[in-house]
């Protein structure tokens, strides 16, 4: 039974006081409401074939001229398409993989990092997209592409963008933006190029990007706290730091930035534990005060972004803006990350046979489902409003489909279908099989530790970060497929947005580890 049972499809109350925002909201609600699912869930079908064909058309025939606007995002087009395939459950033939690898390598900049197109400047965002695409199509060994990724140069490129306030420019002469930080951290984690000098100040910077609403904006202003506000100048970054000066966030709380900041914060937990004072501990020169974010405020903001029943439970990206399919991932997909930070994610015993049934088992199922957002409604939004009849997925009706929305709607659907959370047994298994010497030998940064203590800390940083990221697994018995199992899509990693298979393989290779097999579902204790 859909939310129709609970919902009166009431419009957002306008209190008899119409403004541009409420008028646009009302029009949109009428539009979305007309896509309410007909009685009987089974009629709501994910047209996988159509969406495959939409993606395949782009891959085989190429992108139409209007995609010129994405000419500086070519690896994104590739990643959105290939990861779209991964989620929808399609494999790629070897020739396609080879052509993709060759294309991606043409985007690698001679000075390090990847660019939006051949001959363009290296940039953090296309670097993430390229590395993720490599995770999907590449493999170890000659011709597999992974060997040809110049990790040392990527590291140097990252360090060349580092700012005094802990942030990074996205490219030379580029802007500071939390999306860039997320992309950098995801890549550094996948490629085993994490170091304390790379991560220094990043948590502090991220914390300054949280707004009073609880979500995150795109950056913060460093100029009062750090003398060097101007990346165009060559001022000494260590010149002066005033910890009491305000570092206000720039830009309101926004779904995309909130996902990037939150995922970054989760990835950085191991770094924070090792390089900052413990909560309650006296900070010192070597262990500074731990930066904090308002986790409860963040949770509140994220769940407030889910639309009303009349909006079919889609997510919006900002307060008082319209719902959009892509926020299914950015905002909807962020909720599980926040749950993790709050410590409310634990793998449970799966439901018993008595209560696992579809129809009358809903209540029991709901009791077992710990997700703090409405998974059922989000799936309904994507299935009913997000699918374009001619193939591909979209923002909302009647907009056309595009590669970006196809991926993020699919990923959002995946996040609503599958509850993927950190697994403590999995994490422990990775740690007990951990080969620190191999991990250290595979570090390609050229970063040198100057003491045994520092070396051990860096070993721990690598091990703990890697083990945490690799520990995310689907919680058994918690899958929910609106419209039935035929609508099932593959699970995706909530931090990286790659399948667990792809992220496991890439990280095993770059950390020099042989990962223990993932314990098959039934025998988990």
């Amino acid at each position, binding site marked *: 039974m859909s939310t129709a049972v609970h919902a009166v499809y009431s419009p957002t109350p306008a*209190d*008899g006081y119409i403004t541009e*925002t*409420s008028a646009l909201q009302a029009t949109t609600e009428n539009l979305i409401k007309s896509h309410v699912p007909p009685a009987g869930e089974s009629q709501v079908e994910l047209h996988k074939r159509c969406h495959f064909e939409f993606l395949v058309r782009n891959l085989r025939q190429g992108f139409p001229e209007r995609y010129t606007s994405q*000419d500086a995002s070519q690896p994104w087009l590739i990643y959105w398409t290939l990861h779209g395939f991964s989620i929808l459950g399609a494999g790629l033939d070897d020739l396609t993989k080879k052509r993709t690898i060759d*294309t991606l390598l*043409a985007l690698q900049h001679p000075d390090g990092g990847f660019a939006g197109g051949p001959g363009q400047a290296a940039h953090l965002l296309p670097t993430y997209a390229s590395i993720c695409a490599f995770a999907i199509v590449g493999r170890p060994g000659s011709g597999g592409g992974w060997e040809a990724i110049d990790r040392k140069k990527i590291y140097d490129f990252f360090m060349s963008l580092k700012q005094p306030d802990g942030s990074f420019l996205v490219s030379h002469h580029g802007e500071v933006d939390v999306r860039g930080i997320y992309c950098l951290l995801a890549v550094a984690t996948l490629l085993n190029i994490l170091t304390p000098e790379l991560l220094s100040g990043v948590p502090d910077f991220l914390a300054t990007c949280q707004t009073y609403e609880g979500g995150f904006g795109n950056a913060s202003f460093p100029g009062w706290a750090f003398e060097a*506000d101007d990346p165009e100048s060559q001022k000494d970054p260590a010149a002066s730091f005033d910890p009491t000066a305000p570092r206000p966030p720039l830009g309101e709380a926004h779904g995309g930035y909130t996902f990037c900041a939150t995922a970054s914060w989760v990835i950085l937990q191991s770094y924070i534990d090792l390089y900052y004072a413990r909560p309650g501990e006296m900070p010192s020169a070597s262990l500074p005060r731990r930066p904090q974010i308002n986790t409860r405020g963040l949770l509140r903001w994220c769940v407030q972004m889910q639309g009303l029943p009349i909006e079919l439970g889609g997510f919006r990206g900002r307060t008082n803006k319209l719902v959009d399919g892509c926020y299914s991932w950015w905002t909807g997909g962020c909720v599980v990350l926040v749950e993790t930070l709050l410590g409310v994610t634990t793998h449970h015993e799966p439901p018993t046979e008595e209560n696992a049934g579809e129809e009358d088992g809903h209540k029991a199922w709901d009791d077992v489902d710990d997700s703090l957002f409405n998974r059922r409604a989000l799936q309904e939004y994507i299935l009913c409003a997000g699918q374009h009849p001619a193939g591909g997925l979209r923002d909302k009706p009647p907009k056309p489909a595009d590669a970006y929305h196809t991926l993020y709607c699919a990923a959002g659907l995946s996040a609503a279908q599958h509850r993927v959370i950190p697994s403590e047994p999995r994490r422990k298994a990775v740690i007990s099989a951990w080969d620190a010497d191999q991990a250290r030998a595979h570090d390609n940064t050229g970063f040198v530790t100057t003491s045994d203590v520092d070396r051990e800390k860096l070993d721990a940083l690598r091990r703990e970060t890697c083990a945490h990221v690799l520990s995310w697994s689907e919680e058994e018995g918690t899958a929910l497929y609106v419209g039935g199992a035929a609508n099932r899509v593959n699970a995706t990693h909530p931090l990286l947005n790659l399948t667990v298979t792809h992220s496991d393989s890439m990280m095993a290779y770059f950390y020099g580890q042989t990962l223990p097999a993932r314990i098959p579902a039934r025998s988990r204790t």
Partner: protein
Amino acid sequence: MSELFADDPEWADVVPIRQYENVNPIAPIFYSEEYKDATDYFRGIIKTGEMSPRVLKLTEKIIRMNPAHYTAWQHRYKTLIAIKADLEEELRLMDVIATQFMKTYQVWHHRRLLLTAINSVDVAVLELDFLRDVLKLDTKNYHTWSYRQWILAHFNNETRLWARERAYAEQLLDADVRNNSAWHHRFFVVFSSGVRLGDEDREQVLRRELSYAKEKIALAPNNLSVWNYLRGVLEFTDTPFETLTSFVEPYTASRRLASGEEVLDLDNPLPSEKAELPCVAALEFMADIYEKRAGDAIAKAVEIWRSLADERDVMRKKYWEYRIRDALQKA
């Protein structure tokens, strides 16, 4: 008549470079002839490192066809600096592009680089005026607002830049009280960026902001922006939510008091006649008050969360139930 660089004798000395050599790229884009031509020549001058007036023409052409081409922007900026171009003239040239392509990052970042290089408060004043015009077209443009906030912080001039900002935010909120970008801007100006000239009495500022928020809530209570603002102000100033109990209570009732029953209280404006009550945000606020009070009040919080979960805000059922669990666990 061809507009291609390939046919232009002025560009005969440049060797155009195709995008992909010896690679059959996956998922190619079907560029127009003009775009392919311009970017082939762009790759050509990148290779030679040319920074000259004609490069400005080339990059402008590319930017107009693809305003997201960050490398073209980057090289344009470097060229402007290298040839010591008139940066204010560049700003004016960019005005039309900014208006046309206002949803693109690079357009705004370029202006920011120019403002930084010009380093003039006079120009910053003009820029803020320009941004007002842009925001008229798209009142919530993210990059524009973020850039506006950066200008204010970077130049940090109280009398010439900060002074009119709160009024500007108010003007926008008069036009649309649901404009979250304007609320965020108000918070930025009044609280997150230090103390404004004239705002040194923080108690007075707090009273003023609370009064403003309450007035806007009374006007249209089902507006998450203003409740988030109110909560933000209270949290920032460490003011307990409890202090607003009398104000919030009428918003949690199912109906307004009939006229004649109400007592005019300037500190606690009542919901407007057409307000649709109870409003969810007010119920949430009340529950937060009860939770903070703790002890016996927890049961009252739970009652509200239960009603939200089951009836008033069912979409967030799981969240409200989490709040119940969490409060009971701590009790």
